[in-house]
């Protein structure tokens, strides 16, 4: 039951995230479409940059953005994490992986 309800919400997000919904929902509390889990993320802890929304949309499906923002990893280390997340069902479009890794290595590197 829990799982199926969650899956439904996730399916909506997975479909929506590549279209850029993932974050715009959270920034538009008046839209009425934002799942409650996203409303807590109005203060996005990820560094602002061109691909902040891309990373936000892909990652917030499964976990809070604080999980990412507190990390400092090399690009190679981030690749291990992102590739694992892809096996866990992270939605990807062609080119997303490189964009995400570039963002993470630039802002949350070591």
């Amino acid at each position, binding site marked *: 039951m829990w799982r199926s309800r969650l899956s439904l919400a996730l399916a909506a997000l997975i479909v929506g995230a590549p279209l850029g919904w993932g974050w715009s929902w959270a920034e538009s509390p008046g839209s009425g479409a934002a799942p409650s889990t996203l409303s807590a993320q109005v203060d*996005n802890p990820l560094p602002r940059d061109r691909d902040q929304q891309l990373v936000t949309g892909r990652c917030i499906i499964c976990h809070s953005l604080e999980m990412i923002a507190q*990390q400092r990893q090399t690009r190679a280390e981030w690749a291990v994490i992102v590739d694992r997340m892809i096996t866990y069902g992270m939605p990807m479009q062609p080119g997303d992986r490189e964009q995400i890794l570039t963002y993470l290595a630039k802002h949350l590197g070591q």
Partner: protein
Amino acid sequence: MDQDITRRAFVIHVGAAAALLGGAVPSSAQTPPAPVAGKEKLIVRSPRPINLETPLRDLSAEITPTDLFFVRNNYDGPEIDASQYVLKVDGEVDNPLTLRLDDLRRMEQITHTITLECAGNGRSFYSPKAPGLQWENGAVGTAAWKGVRLAEVLRLARPRPSASHVVPDGNDAPPTAQAPDFIRSHPIWKAMEPHTMIAIEMNGRPLPHLHGGPARLIVPGWIGSASIKWLVQLTLADKEWGGPFMQRSYRSPRVEDPQQTYSLQSLECKSLIVSPLDGARVAPGAQMMRGYAWAGEGSVTGVDVSLDGGKAWAPAALSGPAHRYAWRGWEFPWTAVSGAHTFMARASDSLGRVQPGGKPRDPQGYRWNVIHAVRIDVA
């Protein structure tokens, strides 16, 4: 002699000591996440899944109050109605069981004071940074856990001779169909150890949901992830669980062959100074340094303290009760004289382990037990 060795260790590991004092990943300039209801004093490391750290100043009591006790979840789980709770015991057994909470309540109840610590506690002090939640010192706490011996439940199920491992599963749910269930197994010898229990109460109250209620495992002396929350299934198996939370996570390199890893079991030998706190301003005169030490499967045999950044060491007095799997209080009277001071505490245990002055990076940031140091000013 011992002091000389220690002094050299400090010189060698000066980089690690700097990391120890310098500390954690810089905090975000953003608004911190909202506190979690019932856990308002805790630091929110992650709101989803919920991961909460106890500030060191709130670890001052031998028993950590439940509202101050850390929370570590790999996945969140739905609340379970206690009246609907069911625990299944199956696998390599002759008598599969289905137990309700009342069945557990009717069995012999035991209460033990036991310390839980996340394997990644202190991860933020590794340099370079290791992946994972950037815990500082407060993913540790001690509670009075009440419940039934796991051994008694297993005996009712009559394990077959082939049953060499217990595979517990909780009611937490991975967020996608592809993500692996959070399952970690235990060898049968630890499951049958008389302190290993299915807990249904914490600090005299029904086990709260955030701590795995209505029922969870408590695997004493082992890394926190062994103590599976929201326990709904115990499967007896003829081998260790093969999933990624057993075979990839919660593993560290072997000392003799770092290319090989081993599955973490016992906690390290470790101590924390809880008073004075790092950065404290202390009045001149008679003072008391206090802290806790624990050692997983070992027993704490002593805590040495240094008032001068590790040059000279003196034994602290162990205080309070000595429970088999709980941290041990310690204290050391000292006279505060003007100036800046660096205090350190170093525990040793019955397994011959002594806290190190530094340690090589653990790839996943586990097992941080480098000597705790605090800097204070007397004025």
